[in-house]
């Protein structure tokens, strides 16, 4: 589904990312872990064509992401607040997206219903702009937007960060449900090893821009390998 070929990103003299070959299959839940500066966000930004690769390319269903826009129809993401329109209220934001994605009002309604447990009545119908919400609630808005219009790929950068424990568990359930029902492919980066090993069937470990581990062996084995690495 997603293929990374000889991808390099260099800032000045510093190599931020160098991945020779990486394929992500359809309906995989792909976890990305690594310490600060390992290149997780850089990889996501390259996949989304937000930054220009120094060399190499990323293809989604065979299309080079920097040369076509077709893939944007079924790939959604939430990396940070730059992906929101913070001067709108959450309701207005979802409504705007509904028009852009050409969904019906029923579509939007049933979509938001799915997120009601996560929103905990703090998001919708409140007279507040997104920019005035708390960090956790901003993240919830961004994540809910990334699920709109039944995409086949969803990229989430640190989705559990800033969420309370209840919300973290509810989000995990939403992700698992979405995978079971629609076979959605997920790419999730996180520092929370427990959550990532819980929901992902494959975990890639980045260090200084290189893939140093590619784990597909099942929950216990992955957890063990990650614990070994991060306990150094």
């Amino acid at each position, binding site marked *: 589904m997603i293929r990374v070929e000889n991808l390099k990103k260099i800032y000045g003299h510093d190599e931020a990312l160098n991945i020779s070959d990486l394929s992500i299959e359809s309906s995989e839940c792909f976890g990305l872990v690594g310490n600060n500066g390992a290149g997780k966000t850089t990889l996501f930004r390259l996949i989304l064509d937000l*930054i220009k690769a120094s060399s190499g390319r990323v293809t989604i269903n065979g299309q080079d992401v920097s040369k076509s*826009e077709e893939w944007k129809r079924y790939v*959604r993401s939430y990396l940070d607040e*730059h992906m929101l329109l*913070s001067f709108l209220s959450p309701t207005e934001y979802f409504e705007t997206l509904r*028009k*852009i994605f050409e969904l019906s009002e029923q579509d939007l309604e049933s979509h938001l219903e799915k997120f009601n447990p996560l929103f905990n009545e703090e998001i919708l119908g409140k*007279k*507040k702009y997104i920019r005035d919400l708390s960090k956790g609630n901003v993240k919830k808005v961004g994540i809910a937007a990334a699920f709109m219009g039944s995409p086949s790929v969803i990229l989430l950068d640190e989705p559990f960060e800033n969420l309370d424990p209840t919300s973290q568990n509810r989000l995990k359930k939403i992700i698992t449900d979405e995978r079971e029902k629609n076979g959605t492919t997920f790419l999730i980066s996180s520092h929370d090893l427990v959550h990532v090993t819980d929901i992902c069937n494959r975990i890639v470990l980045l260090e200084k821009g290189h893939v140093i581990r590619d784990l597909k062996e099942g929950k216990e084995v992955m957890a063990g390998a990650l614990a070994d690495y991060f306990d150094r």
Partner: protein
Amino acid sequence: MTPEFIRLLILEKVRSLSFGRDIVSALLVFVFVGFLFFYLVGLAVFLGLILKNFFEVQDVPSFLNKAAVFYLFAEFLIRFLIQKKPLFDLNSFLHLPIKRSGIIHYLLARSLFSPFSLLVIILFVPVTISDINPVYGPLYASLWVATLFFFSIAMHNLVLWLKEVIDERFIGTVSIFVISVMPFLLLYFNVINIGEITAPFFSLSLSGPEPMIVSILVCLVCYLLIHRRYLGNAYLDRVTKRGFAFMSGSGRDLFSRFGVAGTYADMELKLILRHKKSRGFLIMSLLFLLYGLFMYGMSGSDESLMEASGIHLFVGIFIVSIFFINYGQFFLSWNSNSFDFFMVQQHGLEALFRGKLLLLIVITIFLYLLSLPYVYFGWQIVIFHTVALLYSIGVGIHFVTRLSMWEPKPMDINRGAMFNYEGIGFAQFLMAIPFFVLPYVIYAPVSFLFDPYTGLAAVGFFGFTGIVFRDKIILYNVKQLQARRHKISSTFRQGT
């Protein structure tokens, strides 16, 4: 603690984003500010001579005594419009183990480091030396300037206090405006000259220290006023409180009939209405509608309107397209906070571009319609404004949008518009050319060879051609934008 605060103050200035801005724009802003300063100093140095020779003032000191109060009212108004609240930096200090009162003393003291504080010194010291000193001696001359200076500082604190009390309420702002303009109106309509009433007070400072003591006391009272007010309000939730105005109008989507571009135009309209800087530009555009009153009101007859048609074309372009020069110059910077949003939508950049164009054109036509009552001064004005409209939306707009892609800068759009140079680069200076130079490249030779009407028709026709070929031009510009998308988005991501 004080030396540490001073060190922080210097570091903040040196390390601020605007300090490290690219050199060209910094230089241009510097030149602009330098010119202002130059004129100000020039005015100050020759103030005595100007008063004596041009206004035929016999006794300069007694004239200054009368004028002082008008100066103070004018400075008050300017301060009220431009001066910033210093309290917004509070959150970087509140958690530190420093007394709240001390932090506020620091913030207030820091706010004094502004050009305003020197205004009295720059403007009045030269004339004091040249005209007051010879008559009253150095001691009383300095007492006179000091009185004015302390009043100026008092106003600094008073304005901060008033801003706090009024809290951007419309009625409050208008009444402050009316109060500070009132002395000038009363003088203009010969009702009463407040200067005559206050002159004895200022002339007293030429024979004793009492007025200066009064001004120092006023200054202290104002300082205590604002210090107490800030002390009571120095909590984060008070500082970061933002209004939820303009929410009511959000239900209607004005542009939805225009499809996807319409959705983006609606979004952009919300952006304009919900941010201080863009709102400022919108209000400024409405105020500039009045510009015609001065220009057209002066020329008496139809013939003189046409004689000065070159100037009036300029006035027309100015009135019709002021919003779009102001707003369009930062075309993409307005969206610097959310540029990634458009990057990840399918054809998001193109839709953003078309949506913004749609909105700009609609607002420009709206301003054109509002300007039509000027027909009262002569039917030719309709020609000027129509030509200006055709030119602006046919040609000018494409130059502005194209130039705006040239290294746009990120911008914090929650800050006010006045004297805010954020987002300014070299491209912003180049944008004056398509509006104020290019029309004349066509108009001047044609009207010289034939007559002004033909000249105007040529400019209008040029604009009309642009409207006919708009699809091709827009497509070309969208391609340019897409080619630059990575560079632009990474600058925006760094900035905010």
